[in-house]
């Protein structure tokens, strides 16, 4: 017998020993970061960067495959007992000796996860991780001249790049409301002092929003530079228009923050994605009824919210709990009870 076959036999036997649980359920108790476990990480430190931003140092599990500068990672954090997933850019260099990675998080108003990470996260906490992903990355071939155009927390993926790869000629234009809001400010100034970077800070509280036409004056040779831009949609839209207008669109790489803002309304168009049916729903009829009327096979039971026999993934959009009025927005892994939930805007139910 080959060793793989042997190992799988042994594993089967082990599964019999632990049934109905899995061996991993027990191993997770002692070694949640081991190879072969679901990918997790442990928060080892949280360093404040500005008044509302902090860098979170994470020890990823053994299954972590590393990242490329500029990529982001999705993390699952338990906030008030509820697991929420968000994506953050990695800000650590790819060759960090201690094997840890960092993300840098800016607390956004009402942001559940960002505020939790910046203000309440404790070292020692386990979080869930996905592998790093994203194609806002540096190319293999080194460009001669580079421009980084960033605003606010849009600096985070670029910081990952700056810390990772040195170029001969790098210019950065960064916008933030005030000097003290510039994340990584002292590090940027050090780089500038070492002549590794030419830095222009735009303080929007005093200077106003960056007018993209000002680039000619700030970085006269911008059109010759391979550019990475990250920041709010307004800035990126303007940049794309500007680069396209000058016929150099291919030099511009942009990274947009997740646009997924759900507007919770009253009723909306409901898509049953598995069956491919789309119907209009009001804000008072349970999605279970809506689905059944549309001829979709919906699991059900008590039809009054107690048996959990009707839970179904919510793929996108938002629903309202008809008993409490509570709004649930789609996130990976979110299941809803269709018998007591109604559409709160357009939504997609996996049935």
């Amino acid at each position, binding site marked *: 017998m080959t060793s793989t076959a042997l190992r799988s036999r042994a594993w089967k036997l082990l599964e019999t020993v632990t049934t109905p649980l899995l061996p991993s359920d027990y191993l997770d108790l002692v070694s949640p970061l081991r190879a072969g476990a679901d990918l997790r990480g442990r928060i080892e430190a949280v360093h404040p960067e500005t008044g509302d931003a902090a860098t979170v140092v994470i020890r990823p599990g053994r299954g972590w495959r590393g990242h490329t500068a500029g990529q982001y990672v999705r993390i699952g954090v338990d906030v008030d007992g509820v697991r929420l997933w968000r994506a953050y850019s990695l800000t650590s260099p790819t060759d960090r000796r201690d094997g840890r990675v960092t993300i840098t998080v800016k607390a956004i108003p009402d942001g559940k996860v960002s505020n939790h990470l910046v203000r309440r996260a404790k070292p020692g906490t386990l979080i869930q991780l996905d592998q790093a992903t994203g194609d806002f990355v540096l190319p293999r071939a080194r460009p001669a001249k580079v421009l980084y155009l960033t605003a606010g927390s849009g600096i985070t993926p670029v910081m990952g790049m700056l810390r990772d790869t040195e170029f001969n000629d790098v210019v950065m234009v960064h916008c933030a409301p005030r000097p003290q809001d510039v994340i990584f400010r002292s590090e940027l100034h050090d780089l500038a002092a070492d002549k590794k970077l030419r830095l222009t800070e735009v303080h929007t509280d005093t200077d106003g929003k960056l007018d993209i036409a000002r680039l000619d004056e700030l970085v006269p040779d911008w059109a010759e530079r391979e550019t990475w831009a990250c920041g709010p949609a307004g800035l990126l839209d303007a940049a794309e228009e500007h680069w396209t207008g000058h016929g150099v669109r291919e030099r511009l790489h942009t990274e947009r923050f997740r646009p997924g803002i759900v507007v919770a309304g009253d009723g909306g168009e409901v898509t049953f994605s598995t069956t491919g049916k789309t119907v209009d729903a009001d804000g008072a009829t349970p999605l279970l009824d809506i689905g059944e009327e549309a001829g979709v096979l919906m699991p059900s039971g008590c039809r009054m919210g107690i048996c959990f026999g009707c839970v179904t993934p919510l793929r996108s959009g938002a629903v309202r709990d008809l008993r409490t009025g509570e709004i649930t927005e789609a996130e990976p*892994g979110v299941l809803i009870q269709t018998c007591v939930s109604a559409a709160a805007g357009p939504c997609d139910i996996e049935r």
Partner: protein
Amino acid sequence: MTAIDPTAHLTSEQIEELGRELDAIRDEVIAARGEKDAAYIRKVISVQRKLELASRGVLLFSFFPPAWLLGTAGLSVAKIMDNMEIGHNILHGQWDWMRDPKIHSTTWEWDHVSPSEQWKHSHNELHHTYTNVIGKDNDLGYGIMRVDEDQRWHPFHLGQPLWNFINACFFEYGIAAYDLELGKNLRKRRRKNPEFRARARAVGRKIRKQVLKDYVIHPLLSGPSFLTTLAATFTANLVRNLWTHSVIMCGHFPEGVQVFERRSIKGETRGQWYLRQMMGSANISGSKAMHFMTGNLSHQIEHHLFPDLPSNRYAEVAVKVRALFEKYELEYVTGPLPKQVFSAWHKVFRLSLPNKKPKARTPDREKELLAA
């Protein structure tokens, strides 16, 4: 069926008002649910797993009597925790709000021969929706017992104390058979029904796995302690079965608990549904440890009102619920375990004998009782 309706003094407005007050209690808990609750269930799960591991470890040396005692006791407690505070409550969806796919009603499997999928249907859906409705809620007497004066007596019922005792010893198998609705399905030539056969196969698979683990693999792993480990596991399962059976008997069988006619739930309002749960359930009083070991089913009344609230909240909810019972002048059936177990068993014995035929009975009810 009770001759006097203990809710007769309530107007329908009062019943709806009661429903609103109960909804408010539920909303309060939901709004407060959070980190502490999540930490609680994670802790319980981790303690259960460690206890089970440790007990199985000790049983490797069970040829040594003190080790046998310790391991058997630990394993019994671990199995009770798995079934009650953890399994039963997770399968109710009480912890779904955490969005942790590992602690979720759709993924959880428990140390029990009834596969969780089937149990969720017969328990969450049938029993909790149709609580104590004769002919609809099979939990009432599990199809083998006469639980109400109005049910027709049959000589078969003479043996019901014995049936009940046997059921208690092999309770998990009883539950599996009951989830399959074995009586009905075997009797009525539904044996061939593919849906039933698929479910029966699933139970068969689960039983095989459970038996293999408890009675073959673990004893074999114990080597020289083979026989003593076998005996220990058997004992732990027996203890767990007797315990869960007792707790569950206390939930709906003690004297003072009402049963209902099928007709009475037609067009039931939310308030009336709540009222039926209140009148159809009974609690067990006792210490914190007692509540924990019953999986908080000692708060059966609260659990039936709010089956999806996290179990660790029932104790605080009970105070408010009890106040409502008083306000609406309803009887809150509760008592210490021995008293409630005695009361339930007493009823089993009493109803094993025929009673005087009750006078008033609707034709509708007659039919149901015959069918039940």
